[in-house]
C-alpha cells in the first residue's frame, strides 16, 4: 500500500476534475478571445468556472478574481506591484509580513529590500501564529502593505485574519493574505473578512498544478505583473488556460461544498493519527488542534533527525515531509520550529503529515504502525538515546 500524507505540498487531482478538463485539450481547444465558434464554445465552461470560484470564496461581483499560473505568481504580483504603485511612485516605504511566510513572499521581500523597501518580519508566538496586536504595533504611517498568510503550510496553524483585516482597514493599509493552505481546507468567506488581496492555488485542493488566482477587492488598482493582450480585462495577460481554469473551478466547488462534513471526517482521521503518535515518549505536536487546519500535523520526535525519519517512512511506502517542500532540498532546520522557540535540539526533528479527503482509516492505521517502527529503529541508532555515556573531564 502506498500512502500519501504530503497533501500540504500538493494533492492528487480529483478524477472528476481530470474528466472535466479532458474535452478542453482535444475538442474545445479554441482561444476564448477568438471570434469564431472554436473560441466561443469555451465560454460556457469558463463562465461556470468563474461562478464556482466566486461562490467558493464568496466574492462580490464588484471584486476581481484573476486567474494566474500559481500562488507564487499571485504573491509576486501583489508585493511587486504595491512596491511599484505605492512605494516607487508614492510616499510609502514599508511592508509588514510574518517571518513564517512561504518563500514566494519572503524571497520577494528580500528582493524588495535590495530595492530600498523597509520590510518588517513579524515573529510568531508559541502557537506559531502572528497575533493581531503585533501587526498593529508595527504599522507606521508609511506602511504600504501587510501580507500575512491565512494558514501556515508547515504547522497548519490558522492566523487571525479577521482581526488583522480590521486593523489594516482602520489604519488604511492594504492587506494581502496568502491563503494557499486555507482555501479548500477551512471556510474562506470574503464577505466576512476584510482583505484587499488573496492568493490561492488549485493544486492544494485536488486541482491541477499551474493554475491559481488572485482575489482583488472591489477591482481596485494594482499594476499588472504580466503585460500583454487584453486577457482578464488587461489585468493579467496570457491566453486563458481553459482546461486548467475549468479544472480549478470544479476542484474548488468539490472542496468547498459540504466542507463541514468533509473536514470533520479528515479531522477525525488526523486526530486519530495524532493521538496514536502522541503515545510515543518524547514527542510533541506544534500548535493546538482547534486552531489548526484539520488535515495537518507537525510532530517532533526527540533524537530522530527529520530526513532519517522520512527515509524510513519512504521505505514503508509513505510520503511525508520535514517542512516546506520548496525547502526540502536545503535540508535546513525547520524555520517554523525555530520561530516558535522550540527546544533547539528539536529543530531538526519535525515531521509533517498532511491528510486529504482521500485518506482512509486503513491508511492512517498503517502509518501509525510504520511510524512507531521507524522511531524505534532510529532511536536505537541515535546518540541521543545512547545508554553508555562518556565519562569525561
Amino acid at each position, binding site marked *: 500500500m502506498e500512502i500519501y500524507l504530503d497533501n500540504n505540498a500538493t494533492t492528487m487531482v480529483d478524477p472528476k476534475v481530470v474528466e472535466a478538463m479532458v474535452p478542453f485539450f482535444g475538442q474545445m481547444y479554441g482561444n476564448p478571445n477568438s471570434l469564431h465558434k472554436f473560441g466561443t464554445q469555451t465560454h460556457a465552461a469558463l463562465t461556470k468556472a468563474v461562478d464556482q470560484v466566486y461562490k467558493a470564496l464568496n466574492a462580490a461581483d464588484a471584486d476581481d478574481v484573476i486567474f494566474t499560473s500559481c500562488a507564487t505568481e499571485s504573491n509576486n504580483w501583489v508585493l511587486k506591484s504595491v512596491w511599484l504603485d505605492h512605494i516607487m511612485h508614492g510616499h510609502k516605504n514599508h511592508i509588514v509580513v510574518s517571518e513564517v511566510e512561504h518563500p514566494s513572499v519572503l524571497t520577494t521581500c528580500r528582493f524588495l529590500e535590495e530595492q530600498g523597501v523597509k520590510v518588517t518580519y513579524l515573529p510568531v508566538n508559541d502557537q506559531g501564529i502572528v497575533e493581531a496586536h503585533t501587526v498593529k504595533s508595527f504599522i507606521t504611517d508609511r506602511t504600504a502593505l501587510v501580507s500575512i498568510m491565512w494558514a501556515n503550510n508547515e504547522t497548519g496553524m490558522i492566523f487571525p485574519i479577521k482581526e488583522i483585516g480590521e486593523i489594516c482597514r482602520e489604519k488604511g493599509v492594504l492587506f494581502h493574505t496568502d491563503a494557499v493552505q486555507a482555501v479548500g481546507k477551512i471556510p474562506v468567506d470574503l464577505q466576512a473578512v476584510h482583505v484587499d488581496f488573496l492568493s490561492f492555488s488549485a493544486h492544494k485542493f485536488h486541482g491541477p498544478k499551474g493554475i491559481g488566482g488572485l482575489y482583488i477587492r472591489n477591482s481596485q488598482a494594482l499594476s499588472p505583473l504580466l503585460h500583454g493582450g487584453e486577457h482578464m480585462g488587461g489585468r493579467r495577460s496570457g491566453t486563458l488556460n481553459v482546461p486548467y481554469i475549468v479544472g480549478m473551478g470544479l476542484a474548488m466547488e468539490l472542496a468547498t461544498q459540504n466542507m463541514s462534513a468533509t473536514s470533520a471526517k479528515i479531522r477525525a482521521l488526523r486526530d486519530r493519527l495524532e493521538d496514536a503518535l502522541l503515545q510515543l515518549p518524547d514527542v510533541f505536536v506544534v500548535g493546538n488542534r482547534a486552531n489548526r487546519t484539520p488535515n495537518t500535523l507537525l510532530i517532533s520526535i526527540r*533524537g*530522530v*533527525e*527529520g*530526513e*532519517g525519519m522520512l*527515509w524510513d517512512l*519512504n*521505505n514503508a511506502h509513505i510520503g511525508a515531509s520535514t517542512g516546506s517542500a520548496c525547502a526540502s*532540498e536545503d*535540508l*535546513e*532546520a525547520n524555520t517554523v520550529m525555530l520561530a516558535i522557540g522550540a527546544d*533547539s*535540539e*528539536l*529543530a*531538526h*526533528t519535525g515531521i509533517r503529515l498532511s491528510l486529504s479527503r482521500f485518506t482512509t482509516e486503513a491508511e492512517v492505521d498503517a502509518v501509525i504502525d510504520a511510524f512507531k517502527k521507524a522511531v524505534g529503529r532510529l532511536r*536505537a*541508532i*541515535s*546518540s*541521543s*538515546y*545512547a*545508554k*553508555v*555515556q*562518556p*565519562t*569525561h573531564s
Partner: protein
Amino acid sequence: MARDSLIGGALWEEYSTEVQRRMNTPVHMGEITQEEADATGDKLIIADFGAESCGDAVRLYWLIDPKNDTIQKSKFKSFGCGTAIASSDMMAELCMGKSVDEALKITNIDVEKALRDTPDVPAVPGQKMHCSVMAYDVIKKAASMYKGVDMSEFETEFIICECARVSQDTLREVIKLNGLTTVEEVTDYTKAGGFCKSCIKPGGHEVRDVFIVDILADVMREVEAEKASKKIIEARGNGDFKSMGLVQKIKSVESILEEYIRPTLKADNGDVELMDIVEEGEVFNVLVKYKGECISCSMNTTTTLAGIEDMLKFKLKAPIKVIVT
C-alpha cells in the same frame, strides 16, 4: 545553472547502494560498556562530536589495546540523516584494527570513497558531503581523549572546505600557480566549494570566518602586485639605475610612471609624458610634460611634482630630479 539544475535533484537516488544499505542496516551501530573493556583489559574511549541542534551528532566508542595502541573494537551511535548514519558506520569499520595514529589519518573523503559503488561515482550528492565531515572529526576527538591532548593538536592546517578537506595553504598555492580568477575555476582545480558550498561565500550552511571568495580576492591582489613589481625589476635590468643604458633608464622610469603615477592623474583626467632623461653631474634630470587637466592644475609644480619625484627616487634608488618642460 543550466539544463541539469532546472528540476530539483532526486537527492536520495544519488546515494550509493552502499550508503543506502548502511542506512537501512548499520553494521557497527551500538555501544561498548566499561564492563566489556574491563573484561579484555582494553581502554574504553567514548567521544562525542556535533550537536542535535546543528542537525548532526555522533558518538564513537573505541576499545584500545594499550600495549600497542590498536583499536580492537569500534562502535557508533548517531543522530543524523542517512548520510551521517552510513558514513559513521563506515568510519567505525575503517578504524577497526588500526593503531590510533593510523586511524587519525582517515579523512571524510576516505569514508566517502569507501562508500562508493563504483570508483568514479560519488557516494553522496555534493550538498550531503558535509554530513560525512562529522565522522572525520569524531576520530580526532577520540584520539585526543586517548592521548590526553587537545584536539587542535591534530589540526596542523587551516581547513577552508571541510567537505573536500582543502586547506588555506593549498588554495592559495593552486590559485597562484594557475592564475585562477573565478570560484568555478578554484572548484575545478581543487574540488573546494564543490559540495555543500558553504565555504564559498557568507550565508551558507555553516558559520565560518574565511571564505573562498576572500582568499581568491586576496591572492589575485597579491599576484597583481607581484606582476607590477616584476615589470619594474625587468625594466631595471640589473637594478642599478646609474649603470643602465638610456633605453633601459627610460623603460624604468616609464614603468614607475605607468604603475604608480598615471592611475592617479588619469582619475582627474590628467596625464604625464616622459620627454627625456639628462644626466647632470650626480643627478638625473627627468624631463616630463603634463597633459590634460594636469596642465592647469594648481598643484602641478608642488604636490604632484614632489610625488612623482619621490616615487622615482625611492623605487629606482637613484638621485632623480623631475623637471616640468
